[in-house]
């Protein structure tokens, strides 16, 4: 069994990179707007479905379908921000949590209505390449593509935040809403950009996951729930934390699932979440909240 460990580590890290995409999407929204997006699972599945529809209904090549799905993500992101979350800014916590949960339920209903409740799978062999074997470790090309796309997105995101004007504005807004307004930043635009970026990341993750497994309104959103422990593990305010957290969750899931029990693998992320909340609630890279009276 133990000789399989390298295999599980590699598979776990590659799967984890997709979880990390979702986790970064959550952190992005949280940093800018203080809203924790529970609807991320449904947004992700919706993105996957858009990609699927472009491939299967309109017979686009995969790259064009992905591009189309990303365009749809821009539209979805703007709509979600404008219609659902802008009226609820600076509302109490429960209102915001409930709003994103309700958005999730609504989107799930929408997906059931448009794409039905049955599994849909992408046609196979859309992605070039085949399984790569290095020593004892076999890596499926789908997972390698997923890892590569995730890494590219993280690099692009890092460049965006460090080197562009909009990125700088977004970092300012995540520090303080009122101060950044006073500096002349249009924060509603920043919020819209944030949501668009978050939905784009979700769409990437949804398309990758959907391509690897298949899509269904009942379980595709559940895959994104793996990202919640990742976010808490890394710390809510930290992009790096989300990245590390996502990889960790993928790793733990694969190793526990492979070496001990596949069923235990499913739940291991949530056991990790409970342990983190007991011991270090602010997470690995998060800010410790200090309360003064």
């Amino acid at each position, binding site marked *: 069994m133990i000789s399989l460990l390298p295999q599980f580590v590699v598979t776990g890290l590659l799967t984890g990179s997709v979880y990390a995409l979702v986790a970064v999407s959550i952190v992005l929204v949280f940093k800018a707007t203080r809203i924790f997006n529970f609807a991320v699972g449904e947004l992700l599945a919706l993105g996957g479905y858009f990609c699927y529809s472009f491939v299967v209904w309109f017979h686009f090549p995969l790259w064009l379908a992905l591009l189309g799905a990303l365009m749809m993500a821009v539209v979805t992101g703007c709509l979600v921000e404008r219609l659902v979350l802008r009226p609820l800014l600076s509302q109490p916590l429960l209102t915001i949590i409930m*709003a994103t949960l309700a958005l999730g339920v609504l989107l799930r209903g929408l997906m059931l209505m448009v794409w039905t409740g049955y599994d849909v799978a992408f046609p196979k062999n859309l992605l070039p390449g085949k399984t790569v074997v290095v020593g004892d470790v076999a890596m499926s090309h789908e997972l390698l593509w997923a890892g590569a796309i995730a890494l590219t997105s993280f690099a692009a995101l890092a460049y965006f935040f460090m080197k562009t004007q909009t990125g700088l504005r977004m970092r300012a807004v995540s520090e303080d809403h009122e101060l950044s307004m006073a500096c002349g930043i249009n924060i509603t635009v920043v919020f819209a950009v944030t949501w668009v970026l978050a939905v784009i990341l979700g769409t990437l993750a949804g398309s990758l996951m959907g391509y690897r497994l298949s899509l269904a309104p009942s379980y595709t959103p559940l895959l994104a729930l793996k990202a919640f422990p990742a976010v808490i593990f890394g710390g809510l305010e930290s992009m790096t934390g989300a990245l590390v957290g996502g990889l960790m969750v993928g790793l733990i899931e694969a190793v526990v699932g492979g070496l001990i029990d596949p069923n235990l693998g499913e739940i291991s992320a949530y056991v990790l979440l409970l342990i983190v909340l*007991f011991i270090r609630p602010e997470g690995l890279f998060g800010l410790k909240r200090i309360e003064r009276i």
Partner: protein
Amino acid sequence: MWRPCGTFDDTYEKDMTIIRTPAEWVLTVAGLVALCLLPVVLGGGMITTLNLIGISAVSIMGLHVLTGLTGQISLGHGAFMGVGAYAMMMMMNLLGFSFWLAMPLAVLTSGLVGLFFGLPSLRIKGFYLAMATLAAQFIIPWAIVNIRPDLTGGTSTLTVEAPSLFGFAFSSQQRIFYFVMPFAVLSIILTRNLQRSKIGRAFVAIRDNDLAAEIMGVEIFRYKLLSFFICSLYAGLAGCLLVVWMGATNVDSFMLHESIWYLGMIIVGGLGSVPGAIFGVIFIRLLEIVSQSIGPPIAGFFPDALGAALKSGISPFIFGLVILLFLAYEPRGLAHRWEIFKHFYRRWPFSH
């Protein structure tokens, strides 16, 4: 607060009563009698729904105490109901306990499990606590399905014998109505009184400002745990009632979406108000029925496959939409509308 015209609180007893005037007494008694007669008047389908409303009302009282009064968000309410349901099923089917012994023990089990998942509230609050309860929501059904599927039945449905009292078996929906409703009425009265007691005021103090509450001498951790405990007791009771209602246990009744529906009920009803919570239950359960019944006629306009898809998706779609509309346009819920109506009624014909 506006009081009915002509009633004066000249003693402490009068100040504390809930039912103040003879007219209110008449209405209360008439309401209870009408409740008792409902199964005789109504048909089978409606009774099933009414039973579900009663069970949800018991369950929602727990969430009302935890979220409405204490301000702690629980995303694991469905799972705590599951603990009660499965504990009762296992005690009855495996240990051979009678229903009347198994139910209190199951309720207590659920309370203790809730207490355990409330423990993180010592260190964390708000959003992080919501995550801890979310973890409970995933771990508990997982444990039910995977740890000992030979005992719990895993994902399959196990039947449970209907309870009986002095030879009267609660076997049909009409009879279950008389089993569920006393629990619902008692839970509501109990919660209403709890809210007015020292404990209830401590809960509200924690919700409104936990630091200030601690300085005034409210032991935050103790009361938070107590709140979790009470919430899970109600959830466990509702779980047991649900088993009686279905005559069986099935893990699908205790998943995350159920927890979201329960949170939706107190949002629609209005946080922190017992009548509001009940309005919320009735509103959401009826909405469920309505959205299921408008599905088929709408589906008739479309081709078969699309129609079937519409039918399955319309219920969650409408639920999500209604919650979002309430959050945006009436965040204080139906309870607020009810207060406005009462003010209007009492001051009529004067506008203010």
